[in-house]
């Protein structure tokens, strides 16, 4: 492992902050390894994103706007990433820890006969090994795991963990040829966008999350959304709220939902069950609003305000809006 390759996940050129976090970190680690940093951008919209990535500390941006990338489920992406890895030579592959990123990483691990560390929040080069910090068992343990020296390694990177830093001499764009002789099997017949334009929950600097205490779907719209908007943040939920159908499952935070690490997490009408805690415990500051002074969330909140969310949240929204 000498070089570092960041996979730039995107939709039609639109990407998330994690892509730039990966590109920044790729430059740093490659410098420490004494190798080169590259990025791979695939599918329609590649050129637009590659243009943005040029100002990051990268050597080469491999790209191909192949429409098959949108027509088949991840198969072409895995092929192209493998091809880029072979062109670049021994490399550490940085993949975002997103739904599709995890699938890509597992497949690439086998293709490249690589070791893999998941959900990484910090990386260090130690001699010829790369040592990765990642929370395990729902954050109950923080582990340091080394990728043993080998040609290739794969890491999935937790969104919001690494700093974004532009710089470098301007990356070179290099078209990468379509890997030959593959027949793809999983066809995407239809691709439907639902929550387009909303800030990704994992990347929001502030998350305002609601639970069963909100009593129904309306308060998510009328109470939480305005507060989240005032902070420039996003709305999340407990499983109880998602199970009740008040919000879609992709807002659920916790063991069987998303893991978030915003600077500020505001839990509104959420009791703080262990399965919820594991998805938000690593947040910077945690504030809870709960009627019940004995709610478990109080045990790991920096501030618990005991009171009625329906009265407190609108007032807080006004204060934040007028700051």
């Amino acid at each position: 492992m000498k070089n570092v390759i960041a996979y730039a996940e995107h939709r039609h050129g639109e990407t998330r902050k994690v892509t730039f976090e990966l590109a920044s970190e790729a430059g740093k680690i490659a410098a420490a390894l004494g190798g080169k940093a590259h990025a791979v951008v695939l599918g329609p919209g590649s050129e637009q994103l590659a243009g943005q990535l040029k100002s990051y500390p990268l050597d080469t941006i491999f790209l191909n706007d192949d429409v098959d990338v949108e027509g088949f489920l991840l198969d072409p992406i895995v092929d192209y990433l493998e091809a880029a890895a072979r062109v670049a030579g021994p490399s550490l592959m940085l993949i975002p820890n997103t739904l599709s990123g995890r699938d890509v990483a597992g497949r690439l691990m086998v293709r490249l006969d690589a070791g893999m560390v998941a959900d990484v929040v910090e990386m260090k080069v130690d001699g010829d090994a790369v040592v990765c910090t990642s929370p395990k068992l729902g954050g109950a343990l923080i582990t340091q795991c080394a990728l043993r020296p080998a040609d290739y390694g794969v890491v999935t990177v937790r969104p919001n963990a690494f700093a974004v830093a532009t710089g470098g001499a301007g990356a070179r764009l290099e078209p990468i040829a379509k890997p030959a002789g593959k027949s793809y099997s999983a066809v995407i017949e239809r691709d439907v966008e639902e929550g387009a334009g909303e800030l990704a929950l994992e990347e929001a600097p502030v998350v305002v999350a609601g639970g069963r205490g909100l009593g129904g779907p309306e308060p998510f719209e009328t109470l939480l959304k305005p507060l989240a908007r005032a902070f420039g943040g996003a709305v999340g939920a407990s499983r109880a709220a998602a199970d009740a159908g008040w919000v879609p499952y992709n807002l659920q935070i916790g063991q069987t939902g998303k893991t978030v690490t915003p600077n500020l997490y505001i839990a509104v009408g959420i009791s703080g069950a262990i399965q919820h805690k594991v998805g938000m415990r690593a947040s910077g500051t945690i504030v809870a609003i709960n009627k019940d002074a004995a709610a478990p969330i109080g045990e790991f909140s920096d501030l618990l305000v005991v009171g009625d969310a329906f009265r407190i949240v609108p007032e807080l929204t006004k204060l934040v809006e007028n700051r």
Partner: protein
Amino acid sequence: MKIVVTIKLVPNPNAEKRIDPQTKRLVRTGVETVLNPYDEYALEAALQLKERAGGDTTVTIFSMAPDSLKEGLRRALAMGADDAVVLSDEALEGSDVSATAYAMAAALRTLKFDLLVVGGLTDDGSTGAVPGALAEHLGLPCITNARKVDVNDGTIEVERETDSGYQIVRGPLPALLTTALTFGEPRYASLKGIMGAKKKSIATISLQDLALDRPVGTTGSKTELRSFAPPPVRGKGKVIEANDGLSGAQAIFDFLAEKRLV
């Protein structure tokens, strides 16, 4: 149709987790285990498919686990699976995700199936890499995060949840599938199911039954756990009673202002 579902037995989330300082491995013996939550959803999906398909459709559980834990799989049998196969071998201890997926794939290859249903993520390892890795090793189409599945004439059609919506994906069988939570709450085992599970078969296979061409376990792993520690303690913070909305809001605002968060 023959369906295989992979299920991992993981420590109860409420139990205290301990890592053996010598081996640097999670202590799995003497700890109460549960079926990995995502895998319960995978099993639910498989059981729904079996009910819909009827006929001679079967659901087999596959797990890689120490012999001492395998009885925990009766819970999955009680939910309605037909039988279970466990890959168990001391030489597997300390396997990382690459070695685990490699050994699992070798064992799964010996089971003939039309559909392999895998959970999306484990509670303990949490790599989410096993499904993709199994698909590569076994040369299967890899269709993940399904919230609706239809199987017809050797074809699988899936409604797949994405981060920003959904996709309709189609592929040939045999295939690998992972399921989203939206597939539906896993069923409870009925009393009849629990009684029936006692008589169902849990077969054990060991590495001798498989022809592996690379090592597994600690030596076959490409990663090495160097150290581990609990996260910084997050103690109980301030508690403020708010008698009315404004005083509660002001207390939060002042607290955030002090921390420069507003």
